[in-house]
């Protein structure tokens, strides 16, 4: 069986995971290991009047208790947000100070004020309990609707009214004019519910300071170890970059939550230097709920106008986003540049305007969670399309079809130039597989059983493969978003690929190797992928935004081009042929039309022995490349969800879920389908089950798996996943990225299906049995009142 591009190669990395030999951060235990436990605020907003550590310090086995004054006193810098957003009046965003250990004020339940370092984890936790912090409680703004009100508690001094920025995209006058010309306007008020990412491996950090070398090593649960090293050195002054090695070993899922550099990693590094011990911290799940960045949490009001033919003539959006108590690393970009540019969806809309205001609240910081901004945009656009179709008495698929973009490239009025796609085709594929034609019969059959059956669509687009560095920079990003790769052909012909991408479930050790096997015809077993260690791998940007395929693999492809060019030269010289006649296939380097050839490993050996290289050629066979895309990639998809609702209990069962995705070129269909399954399930979680709940005092009310409803196996169906490939012209492989599609596209499909089943448009996520039951009752009441 082929192991090249397009083959469902079984994963090379699985053996260590299925045998319990995976090496995760918490599995690391150094000599002289000590353990950290954080003292966290139980108050959402309070002044820290004093910290009494005497009782903790007196305990046997306690090495030290450290606080924020000591941390800032040692010059450790504040945590930053790396994407600058400018308000529409030209003023910069109001970023409040965030110290890894709070000094004067705590701003959310879970804000760390001190850390105990002790000989065992149990001792550290017991001692943390003995640290007595004197708090003066302050009034709390636990939701964005509270914090934006006049007279709301001031969370950061430099953010008057708690506002971070008031930003816009698009042409407001044009959108207004479009709406004025409309013959039908659909209005929607939506909340995109707040979620906790919950990768199954809790975050962990093991920091070790070597005083002889003045050098630090950090094992950490990171999606992007190089970015962590850069930020830890350049902004937080923990250690100079060349004196800090960051290793992200096996990482148990990320979904965005492991992009950011959190207070705990900073503190562990600093504490290892203070105590001259290796310091380890591993979050428990309770701690994860109050420290891992949350996602979503938007409140939106929008209007979409249509003409007589059902064509969209104007779209106006007003969104309020909750940033939490502090600005996390990419928090500012999520409700702006990862959101508003996607409001055109798959549709040809000429007039769009979006206004976004963001506010601080006394809650955990909010940042990117799988999809990041794009699920919020998609939920709005696709709920809008379905609702409008119902209001206008049109088939929702037909309304979408009338508005589909048909020609590419397509420039939207909100920054994006879509690369390639075939939207009618994927909708047709999904409709066929979902047997939409047979739906009325299935609905009637369900009705006979006393069940309400509904069908819902979501036809969506993403901007993935983050991102062209120049474009990102012009929009405020503090970093470039290219990726790097190095290809090392060893003297025996085996190949090592060093990539700046990081795999935490995506299967890069297999898919990246497929790209190499495809190019040179070498066995996939002879290709090793190296990632996640700043001492081994050149600087890279890491994995998020479905970028490892379109950007990371493209960097590998570019480096392979250079290797190939050198191989041709070496072989042509050795075989006394023209470079142009050299063909590389099946692990052999041949001269076309002759029987002259060299085995792949012979070329490798020749490069290193260097006895017979072309005049002036350097020995060795190792090339590197940086790939900076010219544009985002634009995966698209059509999802169809079919549900049955029990009208007596409000319980929803997803009876069928169909997807037709266009991810461009697919390297490994098995892995891509797995990504869709997982993403769709997270979207179903958002639609039906999950929501982070705070009370008005800023107390988190569902911070464990007893109360925060993670999707279980019985909550989701088996999925029908299929693909249509229109390769992206923006990278050498034509790959578009597949990591986020499921989470982006599925929530509106689910809610559209339920609202279709129960006959009302008014239903918020998560559509719990109680919420659905209430919506059914409210619908019945409003019908009775008419």
């Amino acid at each position: 069986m082929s192991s090249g591009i397009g083959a469902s190669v079984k994963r090379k990395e699985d053996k260590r995971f299925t045998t319990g030999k995976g090496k995760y951060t918490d599995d690391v235990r150094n000599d002289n290991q000590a353990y950290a436990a954080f003292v966290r605020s139980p108050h959402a907003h309070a002044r820290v009047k004093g910290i009494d550590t005497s009782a903790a310090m007196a305990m046997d086995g306690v090495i030290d208790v450290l606080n924020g004054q000591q941390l800032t006193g040692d010059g450790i810098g504040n945590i930053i947000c790396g994407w600058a957003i400018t308000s529409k009046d030209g003023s910069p965003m109001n970023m409040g100070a965030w110290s890894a250990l709070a000094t004067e004020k705590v701003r959310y339940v879970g804000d760390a004020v001190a850390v105990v370092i002790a000989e065992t984890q149990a001792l550290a936790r017991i001692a943390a309990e003995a640290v007595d912090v004197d708090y003066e409680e302050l009034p709390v703004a636990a939701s964005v609707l509270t914090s934006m009100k006049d007279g709301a508690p001031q969370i950061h001094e430099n953010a008057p009214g708690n506002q971070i920025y008031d930003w816009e995209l698009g042409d407001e006058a044009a959108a207004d004019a479009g709406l004025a010309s409309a013959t039908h306007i659909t209005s929607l008020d939506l909340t995109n519910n707040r979620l906790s990412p919950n990768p199954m491996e809790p975050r962990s950090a093991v920091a070790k300071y070597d005083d002889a070398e003045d050098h630090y090593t950090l094992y950490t649960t990171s999606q992007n170890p190089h970015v962590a090293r850069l930020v830890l050195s350049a902004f937080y002054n923990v250690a100079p970059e060349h004196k800090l090695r960051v290793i992200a070993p096996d990482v148990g899922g990320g979904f965005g939550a492991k992009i950011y550099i959190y207070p705990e990693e900073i503190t562990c590094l600093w504490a290892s230097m203070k105590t001259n011990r290796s310091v380890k911290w591993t979050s428990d799940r309770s701690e994860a709920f109050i420290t891992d960045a949350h996602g979503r949490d938007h409140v939106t009001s929008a209007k979409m106008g249509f003409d007589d033919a059902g064509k969209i003539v104007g779209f106006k959006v007003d969104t309020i986003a909750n940033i939490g108590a502090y600005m996390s690393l990419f928090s500012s970009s999520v409700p702006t540049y990862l959101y508003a540019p996607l409001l055109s969806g798959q549709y040809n809309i000429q007039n769009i305007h979006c206004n976004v205001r963001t506010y601080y609240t006394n809650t955990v910081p909010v940042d990117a969670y799988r999809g990041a901004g794009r699920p919020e945009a998609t939920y709005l656009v696709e709920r809008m399309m379905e609702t409008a179709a119902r209001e206008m008495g049109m088939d929702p698929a037909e309304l979408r079809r009338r508005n589909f973009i048909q020609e590419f490239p397509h420039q939207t009025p909100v920054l994006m130039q879509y690369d390639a796609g075939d939207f009618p085709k994927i909708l047709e594929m999904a409709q066929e597989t979902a047997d939409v034609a047979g739906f009325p019969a299935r609905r009637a059959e369900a009705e006979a059983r006393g069940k309400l059956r509904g069908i819902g669509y979501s036809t969506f687009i993403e901007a993935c493969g983050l991102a062209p560095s120049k474009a990102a920079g012009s929009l405020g990003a503090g970093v470039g978003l290219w990726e790097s790769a190095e290809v090392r052909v060893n003297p025996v012909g085996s190949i090592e690929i060093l990539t700046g991408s990081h795999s935490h479930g995506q299967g890069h050790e297999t898919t990246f190797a497929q790209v190499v096997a495809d190019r040179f015809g070498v066995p996939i077993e002879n290709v090793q992928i190296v990632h996640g260690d700043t001492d081994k791998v050149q600087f890279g940007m890491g994995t998020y935004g479905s970028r490892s395929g379109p950007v990371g693999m493209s960097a590998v492809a570019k480096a392979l081009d250079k290797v190939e060019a050198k191989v041709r030269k070496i072989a042509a010289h050795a075989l006394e042929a023209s470079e142009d006649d050299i063909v590389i296939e099946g692990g052999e380097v041949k001269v076309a039309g002759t029987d002259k050839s060299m085995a792949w490993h012979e070329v490798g050996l020749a490069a290193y022995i260097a006895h017979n290289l072309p005049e002036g050629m350097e020995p060795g066979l190792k090339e590197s490349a940086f790939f900076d895309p010219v544009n985002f990639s634009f995966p698209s998809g059509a999802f169809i969800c079919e549900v049955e609702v029990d009208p007596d209990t409000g319980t929803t069962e997803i009876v069928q879920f169909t997807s037709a995705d266009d991810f461009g070129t697919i390297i490994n269909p098995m892995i891509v389908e797995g990504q869709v399954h997982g993403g769709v399930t997270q979207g179903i979680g958002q639609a039906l089950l999950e929501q982070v709940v705070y009370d008005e005092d800023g107390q988190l009310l569902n911070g464990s798996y007893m109360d925060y409803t993670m999707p279980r196996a019985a909550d989701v169906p088996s999925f029908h996943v299929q693909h249509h490939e229109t390769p992206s012209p923006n990278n050498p492989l034509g790959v578009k990225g597949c990591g986020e599609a499921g989470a982006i596209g599925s929530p509106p499909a689910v809610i559209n299906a339920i609202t279709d089943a129960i006959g009302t448009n008014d239903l918020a996520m998560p559509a719990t049995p109680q919420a659905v039951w209430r919506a059914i009752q409210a619908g019945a009441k409003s019908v009775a009142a008419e």
Partner: protein
Amino acid sequence: MTSINMNVNGKAVSGDVPDETLLSEFLREHLRLTGTHIGCDTSQCGACVVHIDGKAVKSCSTLAVSLEGAEVTTIEGLANGDLHPMQVAFNDNHGLQCGFCTPGMIMSGVDMVKRYKAEGKDLTSDAIRAELEGNICRCTGYHNIVKSIEDAAAKM
């Protein structure tokens, strides 16, 4: 401190542990068998499932001192040399992504297949989904985990 003796993965082990030591902690910290994972602190996620005297148990809610003389099997000891059919099936069916929940999924999967076979019941995909109530996966959407367990059941 209590002195305990048990058999883990076919080997006699002993240790002096504080009474509150959980089996998960004993396995990970004392025996350094780190394949048993801790994904939550309320005994919901199932990443820590091991077999005690042949039955699947969450090691995070079992005290080590309660297991005097017990036979414990962890993911590291599931197979002798070759892979167990359940381990093969997870690879064949792409039943794992990040791998963190996988040891618990595999240990639960083996247990449910054995139980259903012993009781002569049919392990349908619906039954597998219901049986997985105590195992949470955030990556796979369960689709391929269910397929993996079905596949292994046919081969065990």
